[in-house]
């Protein structure tokens, strides 16, 4: 048995230790906001927070989350950064197909938490691992800057 704390709730799961967090969250717990894109930490669609830090859940086994807190897109709006990012995303109409955006929002929220006023280089560094095939990069950049300029609620 593995106990996973996801979005503040403990889940006791009968799953192998080496199962990536992605599949535990999607297929076992049933939270489908976190997306599968590549399975090899190449696209960022599966980004979740582990104790507030962004990780690629498709390659991080559930054993690495023992005793730690997982936050997914479904709950990121409960954090000040997550809320600001979501609002900026909607204000600037960032989203197109939306499939990568869970990961983008998670990566951007983590960036703003560690770097409240990111430079373009900071944004490049934090976001280059998150692929968007619809090409929303210019708006993601603008939305991160807009979110950074919003005073914490």
């Amino acid at each position, binding site marked *: 048995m593995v106990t996973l704390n996801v979005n503040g709730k403990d889940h006791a799961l009968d799953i192998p230790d080496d199962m990536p967090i992605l599949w535990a969250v999607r297929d*076992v717990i049933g939270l489908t906001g976190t997306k599968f894109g*590549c399975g090899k930490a*190449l696209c960022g669609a599966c980004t979740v927070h582990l104790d507030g830090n962004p990780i690629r859940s498709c390659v991080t086994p559930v054993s690495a989350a023992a005793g730690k807190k997982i936050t997914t897109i479904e709950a990121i709006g409960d954090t000040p950064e997550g809320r600001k990012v979501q609002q900026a995303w909607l204000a600037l109409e960032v989203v197109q*197909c939306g499939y*990568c*955006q869970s990961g983008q929002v998670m990566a951007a929220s983590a960036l703003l938490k560690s770097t409240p006023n990111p430079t373009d280089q900071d944004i490049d560094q934090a976001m280059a691992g998150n692929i968007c095939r619809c090409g929303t990069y210019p708006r993601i950049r603008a939305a991160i800057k807009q979110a950074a300029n919003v005073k914490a609620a």
Partner: protein
Amino acid sequence: MMTRLETELPALPETGLARREFLIATAGVGGGLVLGFLLPRVMGPQAKHGAETSTFRTESRPFVPNAFIRVDPDGLVTLTVHKVEMGQGTFTSIPMLVAEEMDIDLAKVKLEQAPADDKKYADPILGSQVTGGSTSIRGAWKPLREAGAMARILLLTAASKQWNVPLEECTTSGGMISHGKSGKTVSYGEVAGAAALLPIPQKVQLKDPQHYRLIGTPAKRLDTPSKVNGQAKFGIDAQVPNMKIATVAASPILGGKLTSVDDSKARSIKGVVQVVKLEDAVAVVADHMWAAKQGLAALDIKWDGGRNASLDIKDIVGQLQEASNNQGRAAPGVVARSVGDFRKTFEQSKHRFEATYQVPFLSQAGLEPMNCTVHVQPDRCDIWVGTQVPTLAQAGAMTLTKLPAEKIFIHNHYIGGGFGRRLDVDFINQAVAIAKQLPYPVKVVWTREEDMQHGIYRPYYYDKLSAALDDQGKPIAWSHRVTGSSVMSRWVPQMVENGLDPDAVEGARDPLYARDNLLVEYIRQEPPGIVTGWWRGVGVTHNMFMIESFIDELAHLAKQDPLAYRLSQIDHVPRAKAVLQLAADKAGWGGALPQNQGRGLSVQFAFGSYVAQVAEVEVGKDDIRVKRVVCAVDCGTVVNPDTVVAQMEGGIIFGISGALYDQITVKQGRVEQSNFDNYRVLRMNEAPVIEVHLIRNNEAPGGVGEPGTAAVAPAIANAVFAATGKRIRTLPLVPSLMQT
């Protein structure tokens, strides 16, 4: 005849509804009025009810004036969207068309995805229920506004009758009807039941564009709130009770078949439920994707590679080259267009130029891997999927299950990037074939590797362009010989006449230049093993790279500025000239740039829209970087301007990946690329600054999903030439390809 209020709508364009047998009454369920496209007239219960007997205050039936609109007595307006949302914004722009004419608040409508039904929901341009080809707004523009206007006039009529006041004295706004003189108001919901009993008018009148309150304004997208908080459901998110998860391995050699599989190790993995064999693939069914993946890796599979076992990309390119050079062929290919006399002019000219260009096979690589959830039962088949072609998915399932269409339910979902890949149903048919062998529902999810290596790829094209030039260096004769696979021959063979694939020559058939002596030919050469299909920008994307590179080469030969050279030749297309001039002005065309940087441009008319782009690039030793793209677009009437801008931005970025990085190659019968490490796509740190400028007018709306992609590759190639003096004629543009 009912007319729109004159004071509100002067000089209205009149709409003849008979054109498409639009809005013909059929029997309604429960006395309501249901109307659909192309259905025969049937007098239903509404005739017996008698329209005038009920009062709208007590009427409880819904108002369903056509296949797109439903008004419930409680006032809820439900709009059925016949196009799938894959990022292009149709879940907002199509409701805008209805809401505009119906005078309702866009934010308060409920949206529903249409079921599979070609009779009600076929795209008028494409002939079936397809989301593709940048047609959504072009096709919906008239019928969806008509649907909204029809609903409004019936609701308005119901209220005016109830109040016993002239129709002309009533107005509509925000889902309410008002009578100014008496101060009476009533909601659409309250008159829905009465409106449902009214006869259908033969004509409706549409708003004069000057009275638009939604069309042309930046509406907030309706699908996006659920896409920033994880609530949006894509096909891969489908959850069905008792569902299992499967993942698949198809023959790694293209076209190969399954010989045998030893699944003993796989079956011992906890969570693995079953192993399903198909003719050309094996699926492992499990409690979750992790067990399915582990199970698949533990299978010992023997494949029969078949005839493609030693296939190499060099063989395919060699065959294309041979076909293009017409070796061993009696006929030069199919003539797509012939104007004047190209051959004679070319042969007699002192100045001639020829060049060949090549573009590779491409994967669409949408971020949501192929997936499909299916439950086959004796009396029905349910399919949960994101598809651009619900009726094709239904037809495939009919063949496999032997069930009739009405027993096959396509539950369409948001698509995590279509780009043409979900115009095919191979992965849906495969999932149905797997589910047929299982007594429970199954979600089949491809790994990224499976997705990339068993794709349906944009064809490799090998094109030869030839021009004769006058003494000033302008082209006086032009030929374009397209050689490559015919997507339409597989996908929609009825549109291929006399061997001519109209998509393969789209954009080539009507170049902006040298129109007096023009010869456009198509040579079909199918690559062994590879199935070819649609990719954002379709035929136009490849042809624009060729044409706009070639004209740039001619400008250089003529020692003329590429902008001035083009402008001097396109007086006959003023809208093209205007976008080109605008893009050049906004980009600062002619201004100085640092060393190793250059500007290049392109201009096109495609998908009903005019687009010009100026790209600024920096050429390094190993890499080309696009720093800035300025785009000017005239797509006629703009429905949602922010969506037009977003589609240009996204199309440009998609096109840059194709121009700089992407290619699918084959070695020993296997696709060499497998994931985003070896199929590189543009990332945040590589994305240029993009500026989009719209030219606004009231012309018919053009498509915007694909033109941005088509325009950018030639602009980049021309910018590389401007920066270095080296011309690259093959995509992707890598510095090692620079010719001296």
